[in-house]
């Protein structure tokens, strides 16, 4: 587009294209979708966290009227799901082990709630009753439920290969000499608990077989490409499946793994009838990937002046019973373990360990929350040792453009942390007065979170943009929208470039047969990747339309502007785009384009030292909070919260604010009340009566500060904000509470009792 032109849509706040429908409850979610003659699927799940399965008897269930089929591991053509290590990722894995997970348990269960058998029946009632009639004979086996225990010699083995799933390392400089240079050395251990995504809609999908033999499924998923896992399991060709990502009631990484796809696909394939399978809430909590629990030991050295000299971190992640995405989550933790700080000498040893807990996997932040909690807790503790304020100590050490991060790579853009910090504190205002009965505290956390995949993965996205003869436009791009507004951003980008109002641009579903491949809606990559693909495709279409209009108007191409559906000349002549498009079609000019965007590519990092370019870019942010603690009860109330991020360019400022506020809301639950409690393998709260989420009444007013440095790699200089918005919240609140009570808290959630005990004992 002409560089002089001001944005008409980008950077202005507008309602998302699908907002009205969502508010009115009109979208058909996968769990709502029905087909004629549809069967109801259910999974039978293990009653023990660690056991041998001696026998499975399905005969009584099969005889029940209404039951159409009962499947066990014997009915799965390939019963092992392999943990995909896409692109060149596998090369970075020490030992390159390929982790597997059975689709239906075969002789062994490794966590409570593992799927053992599947039922399809004419009614939900018959399906439920059939589950009760399946006889499973178990022999309980010793299990291991703590990641540190699991690493010990002689611990019960979760898998034959042993309990160590993955290790990552960072070796930068020489920590030995770094600690020698230090005047103060401090070591502390931080704990992060298991968390559930707790989205409104549980996992679900509907599958059927089309007359041409294609297996079709509508599933709430963040990853259309998971159709390949279904074809592997069923051993059918990859072009014989069509996966459509349905609207979703939340993603947050919980739909990044395969959820119901293979289960519902198996049932539809066997019965040749439509089947719906939706997880109940307890199934969702018991049997889909949780946020990994971590133990992080941090040892830091600094000079009296406040300059950090060395960091040594030992990180242990509880993978639960299967690998899922834990190896890659652990990489994110490892690569971001130093936070947004300049540290010359770094040593990180990170391990992911199998236990007989529910398997853990992707969760908004993908290992970054755990790292941030440890490095930001430790920055506060270290500042205390040095007698500096947490803010001053951070400001001494913030990364600047050109500084090397722990992987030895020099930052190519300016982190803006000084500005974010001063604006956030300024917004928090002067310190409050003391109030009787209350301890008031303030805390901050800064963070550095990658957006986009690891730089060596050859990530790409494709999108198609095309005009219709009535002057409307269509975007086709298989980018699932879990509610973050990804679809709307793509519509806005196309509308901006094509000079159309947003109402005249539509986006089709993320459908593996109908839309070009866009890659996963994960890793805060869709705006960056698919945004660039749509931008490229739309610019190509624009060029063609401008050429056509220039010819029709007898003007130079450089003088044509596309505004509100018209082509304009500087002297005020105009043509409707519908006319331009019709004429273009008639004269053989293209009015559509398929474009591919490739992320910049770097060499694979060195697996022994973690040196190299880990990610293409990062999003930086700072949060500050003021909290009050009830002196007699330990109850925490967050009084004020400020979240400040450099988003590069806000495509839709109100959507950015929504992401920023949503991140804080989610982090509030992590900091104050949420935890999946597993007691010796048995989950004590697989329901929302005892897994509590913050309500509007628990959420403070959240002030958002949006910086637009224009440095991002996304369209118009945008960075990603989906995951980053959450990352520092847990640390911010816990640091503020620690400040209030004068005792450092190193684990959460900060239930009143935990804070109460810390206040009384003087330690946590």
């Amino acid at each position, binding site marked *: 587009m002409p560089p002089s032109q001001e944005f008409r849509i980008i950077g202005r706040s507008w309602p998302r294209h699908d907002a009205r429908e969502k508010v009115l409850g009109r979208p058909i979610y996968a769990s709502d979708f029905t087909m004629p003659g549809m069967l109801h699927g259910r999974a039978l799940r293990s009653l023990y966290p660690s056991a041998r399965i001696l026998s499975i008897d399905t005969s009584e269930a099969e005889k029940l009227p209404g039951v159409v089929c009962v499947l066990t591991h014997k009915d799965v053509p390939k019963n092992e799901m392999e943990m995909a290590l896409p692109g060149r990722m596998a090369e970075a894995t020490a030992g390159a082990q390929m982790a597997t997970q059975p689709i239906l348990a075969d002789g062994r269960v490794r966590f409570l709630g593992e799927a053992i058998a599947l039922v399809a029946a004419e009614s939900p009632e018959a399906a439920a009753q059939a589950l009760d009639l399946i006889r499973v004979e178990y022999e309980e086996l010793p299990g291991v439920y703590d990641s540190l225990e699991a690493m010990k010699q002689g611990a019960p083995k979760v898998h034959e290969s042993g309990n160590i799933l993955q290790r990552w390392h960072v070796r930068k400089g020489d920590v030995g000499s770094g600690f020698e240079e230090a005047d103060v050395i401090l070591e502390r251990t931080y704990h992060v608990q298991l968390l559930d995504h707790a989205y409104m809609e549980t996992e679900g999908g509907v599958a059927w077989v089309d007359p041409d033999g294609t297996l079709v499924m509508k599933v709430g998923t963040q990853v259309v490409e998971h159709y390949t896992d279904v074809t592997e399991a069923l051993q059918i060709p990859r072009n014989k499946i069509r996966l459509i990502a349905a609207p979703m009631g939340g993603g947050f990484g919980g739909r990044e793994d395969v959820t119901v796809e293979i289960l519902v696909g198996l049932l539809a394939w066997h019965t040749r009838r439509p089947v719906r399978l939706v997880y109940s809430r*307890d199934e969702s909590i018991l049997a889909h990937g949780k946020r990994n629990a971590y133990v992080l030991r941090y040892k830091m050295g600094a000079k009296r002046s406040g300059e950090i000299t060395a960091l040594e971190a030992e990180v242990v992640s509880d993978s639960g019973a299967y690998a899922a995405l834990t190896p890659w989550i652990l990489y994110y933790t490892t690569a971001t373990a130093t936070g947004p700080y300049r540290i010359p000498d770094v040593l990180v040893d990170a391990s992911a360990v199998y236990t007989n807990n529910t398997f853990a996997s992707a969760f908004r932040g993908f290992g970054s929350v755990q790292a941030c909690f440890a490095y930001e807790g430790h920055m506060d503790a270290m500042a205390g040792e040095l007698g500096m304020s947490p803010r001053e100590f951070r400001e001494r050490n913030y990364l600047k453009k050109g500084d090397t991060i722990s992987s030895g790579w020099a930052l190519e853009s300016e982190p803006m942390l000084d500005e974010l910090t001063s604006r956030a504190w300024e917004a928090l205002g002067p310190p409050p007065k003391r109030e009787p009965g209350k301890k008031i505290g303030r805390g901050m956390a800064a963070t550095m979170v990658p957006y986009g995949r690891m730089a060596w993965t050859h990530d790409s996205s494709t999108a198609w943009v095309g005009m219709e003869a009535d002057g409307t436009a269509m975007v086709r791009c298989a980018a699932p929208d879990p509610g973050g507004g990804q679809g709307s951003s793509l519509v806005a980008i196309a509308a901006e470039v094509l000079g159309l109002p947003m109402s005249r641009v539509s986006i089709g579903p993320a459908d593996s047969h109908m839309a070009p491949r866009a890659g996963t809606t994960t890793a805060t990559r869709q705006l960056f990747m698919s945004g660039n693909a749509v931008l490229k495709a739309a610019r190509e279409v624009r060029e063609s339309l401008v050429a056509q209009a220039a010819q029709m108007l007898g003007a130079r191409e450089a003088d044509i502007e596309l505004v509100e559906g018209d082509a304009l000349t500087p002297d005020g002549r105009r043509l409707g785009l519908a006319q331009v498009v019709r004429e273009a079609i008639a004269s053989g000019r293209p009015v559509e384009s398929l474009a591919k965007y490739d992320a910049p590519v770097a060499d694979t990092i060195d697996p022994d030292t973690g040196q190299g370019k880990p990610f293409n870019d990062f999003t930086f942010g700072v949060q500050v909070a003021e909290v009050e603690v009830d002196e*007699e009860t330990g109850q925490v109330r967050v009084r004020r919260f400020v979240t400040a991020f450099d988003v590069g360019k806000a495509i839709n400022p109100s959507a950015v604010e929504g992401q920023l506020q949503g991140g804080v809301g989610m982090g509030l639950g992590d900091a104050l009340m949420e935890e999946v409690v597993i007691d010796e393998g048995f989950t004590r709260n697989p329901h929302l009566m005892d897994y*509590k989420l913050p309500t509007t009444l628990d959420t403070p007013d959240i002030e958002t500060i949006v910086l637009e440095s224009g440095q991002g790699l996304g369209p118009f200089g945008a960075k990603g904000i989906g995951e980053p918005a959450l990352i520092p919240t847990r640390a911010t609140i816990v640091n503020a509470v620690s400040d209030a009570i004068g005792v450092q808290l190193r684990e959460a959630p900060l239930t009143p*009792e935990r804070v*109460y005990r810390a206040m009384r004992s003087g330690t946590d």
Partner: protein
Amino acid sequence: MRLPPFQLHRPETLQEAVSLLAQHGEEARPIAGGTAMVPMMRFGFLRPEHVVSLKGIPGLDEISESDDGLRIGALTPLYRVAGSAVVRAQWPLLARAVGSVATPAIRNSGTLGGNLSYAEAASDPAPALLALEASVLLTGPEGDRTVPITGFFQGFYEADIRPGEVLVEVSIPRIPAGARWSYLRFAARSREDKPLVNVAVVATSEGVRIGLGGVSPTAIRARRAEAVLQGPGLTPQAIDEAADAAAEECDPLSDLMGTAEYRQDMVRVWLRRALTGLQ
């Protein structure tokens, strides 16, 4: 965790409901708003073969005031109790307590009778009704029976409801002029959580009545704490002693909200706050 199969009955009269419940004995359970029953059935704690819905019985959801006091039909939804002009003006303690239950959605569906029949220790209304010296009217195969609320809660999720009986009405006597009150609830997790401890107090010239929730197998009257206050009244020292007495006489459990020890400490704190903050 889907609902197990059951037969749903929808009687249109109280007699019909009572005879259905009597006929099916232990296989039957009455249901009103379902906010407690349905989760209990989903978790498999209750597996009644017959569920008798009381919602179609007319006349059980009325609030009426007389010289003796207030009568609230058992089927009255919580939001109507909390929002009733009469309740708010004359029994503000009750309005506050009932209006504190969970969320608007739960209060719209849940009923006062259902809340009490469930006999949950961490009920919001129960301590308030204990402090207000309410009574409940039950009807069953043997006829009507009035039970003072102080004797109604018998154990962990156990109320004095005999086979075939249905709770039909809650009666609350008038509060003497000049009485003061307080209702405080302490939720440890989210605001819609049930209370870890809740305290209801009615103070009249006769004495102080204290209801406690969440800290014993049932909601209780804190009789020993009341006795401590009988002589000296609400002096700071007596309040401290009453708070200690209440902590002694409660019998808390440990659960995911907090340990028994913490609950005991919190009884002290919240009773002290309730007694010093009377309205």
